[in-house]
C-alpha cells in the first residue's frame, strides 16, 4: 500500500476554493516535486496533508507504513524565526517532540539520534551556535535536521532552497537527494522546474490545470511542455 493516497482533493480558505482536482500517490522511496505558479496553493496543500488545516473536500489516506506524526516538515521560512534566540541543537532537539509526546523531557538516546542527524547534514560543529547568526543555507540545514529528527521516513519540504545562492542551492539539492537515496521519501515544493526534473521521480503540478505523473510523463504532457519551455538545463 502507498504511503499516501490523495483523491479529488479540494483546498480552500474559509470556503474560498484555492485549488481543486488534486490527486496523487506517494510510495516509499519516491521523490515527488510539487510545482505551480506562486499562490497556486502548494503551501496550502502541504498544510492540509499535515492536518494543519481542513480540506474542503476529498480524501487523504495514509498507508500502513506511516502515521501522521511520522512526517517531518520543513515549513516555508517565517519571519518570527529570524531574531529568535535559539541554538542549533535546541532547534534540532525540538524535532523530538513527536517522539516524546506527553513526556516532559527528551531521553539521552533520542538526543544522540538528533546529534547523528546533525552530523549527517554537516552541521554538528554548529551545534551550540545561535540560529539567528547562521547563513541562510546553514539555517535550512538546521530545519532539515529537525524535520529528519521528527521523522526519517517521509519529509515534506516547502521551498527548502528559496533565498539561497546558486552554490548553496546546489548543495541543498544534493543533500536532499542523498537522503532520498538512503531511503527517505521526499515531497518537495520547488520553484525551479529544471532542478525538480533532475532529481525527482514524480511531478505534481497544481494550478489552473493539474498534472501528476513521472518526470517523463510530465515532459511529454502539454502542461509539462508549456511549463518547461525555456528551461534549457533539463537533464533527465
Amino acid at each position: 500500500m502507498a504511503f499516501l493516497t490523495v483523491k479529488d482533493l479540494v483546498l480552500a480558505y474559509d470556503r474560498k476554493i484555492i485549488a481543486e482536482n488534486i490527486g496523487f500517490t506517494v510510495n516509499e522511496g519516491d521523490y515527488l516535486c510539487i510545482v505551480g505558479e506562486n499562490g497556486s496553493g502548494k503551501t496550502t496543500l502541504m498544510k492540509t496533508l499535515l492536518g494543519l488545516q481542513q480540506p474542503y473536500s476529498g480524501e487523504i489516506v495514509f498507508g500502513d507504513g506511516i502515521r501522521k506524526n511520522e512526517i517531518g516538515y520543513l515549513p516555508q521560512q517565517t519571519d518570527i524565526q529570524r531574531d529568535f534566540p535559539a541554538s542549533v541543537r535546541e532547534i534540532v532537539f525540538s524535532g523530538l517532540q513527536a517522539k516524546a509526546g506527553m513526556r516532559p523531557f527528551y531521553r539521552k538516546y533520542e538526543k544522540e539520534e538528533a546529534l547523528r542527524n546533525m552530523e549527517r547534514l554537516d552541521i554538528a560543529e554548529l551545534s551550540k551556535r545561535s540560529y539567528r547568526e547562521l547563513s541562510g543555507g546553514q539555517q535550512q540545514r538546521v530545519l532539515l535536521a529537525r524535520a529528519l529528527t521528527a521523522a526519517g521516513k517521509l519529509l515534506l519540504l516547502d521551498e527548502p532552497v528559496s533565498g539561497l545562492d546558486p552554490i548553496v542551492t546546489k548543495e541543498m539539492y544534493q543533500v536532499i537527494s542523498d537522503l532520498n537515496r538512503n531511503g527517505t521519501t521526499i515531497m518537495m515544493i520547488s520553484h525551479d522546474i529544471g532542478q525538480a526534473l533532475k532529481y525527482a521521480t514524480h511531478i505534481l503540478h497544481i494550478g489552473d490545470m493539474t498534472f501528476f505523473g513521472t518526470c517523463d510523463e510530465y515532459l511529454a504532457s502539454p502542461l509539462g511542455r508549456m511549463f518547461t519551455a525555456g528551461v534549457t538545463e533539463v537533464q533527465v
Partner: protein
Amino acid sequence: MIDKLIMYLRYPFVTYALIVGVMIALCSSLLGVTLVLKRFSYIGDGLSHVAFGAMAVAGVLGLTNELLIVLPVTVISAVLMLMTGRNAKIKGDAMIAMISVGSLAFGYLLMNIFSTSSNLSGDVCSTLFGSTLILTLSVRDVIISCVLSVIVIVIFILFYNRIFAVTFDEDFSKAAGTDAGRINLLIAVMTAVIIVLAMNLVGSLLISALVIFPALSAMRLFGNFRDVTVFSAVLSVICAFLGIVISILAGTPVGSTIVAADAAAFIVCMIIGKVRGGTAV
C-alpha cells in the same frame, strides 16, 4: 547604610516583601521571552488592566481576599483574549484594547463611587503603581504568593520543551503532534496568574515592564533559549531584590524602583551587546 538595612531586615514585613518579591520576579520573567516572540505582549498589557478592574470590584465588595475574584476573572479574560486575538475576523487587537481600557475605566469609576476611604487617589495610585502594597503583606499573602509562584515555575519546567517548540514554530509543532492550542492556552493562563501575582509587587501599570524587560535584556546578550531564560530569571530576581532594598532605604515607591532597576539593567545589557557585537555562544 548597611546598619540601617540590617535593622530593617529584623522586621518580618521586610523579610516577607523580599521573599515574595524574589519569587514573583522569578516567575514573571520566565514567560517573557515567549510573550515577546509570540507577539503576546499585548495580552499581558490588556490583562493587567483587567486585573485592575477586578481589584476594584473586590475592593467594593469588601472582600478580605481579593484573589478570589481577581484570579478567576483575569484567567478567564486571558483565555478570551487568546481566542479573539487569533481570530482575524473580530479584529482581535481592537477587542483586547476595548476590554482592557474598559476595565480600567470601570475599575476607577467603581472605586470613585463606592470608596469609603478618605484617600481615594492614594488607593488608586497604589493599585496602579503598587506603592506600598508589598510592605503590608500578611503571612497568608506570603504563603499564597509562594505557592502560586512555585506552581508556575514547576509547570514551566515540565512544559519547557513544548513551550520552546511552540514558540519557535507553531506549525511544525502541530505537524509533530503537539497540541499547540493547549500549549497556547497554558501560556495564557500562566500569564494571567503571573500578572495577578505581580500586581502585588509593582501594581497593574508596571507589570508589563516586569515581564518584558528581563527577557529583552537577556536577548541582547545570549543566543540560545535556555541561557536567555536562565539569565532573565537571574536578572529579574537581582533587580527585584535591589529595587526593594533601595526603596526601603531611600523611601521610594517599591514598584517603580524595581522597574527602574530593570530598565537600567536593560540599558547596560544593550550597551554590552552593542560593544561586543553579535551574541555570545
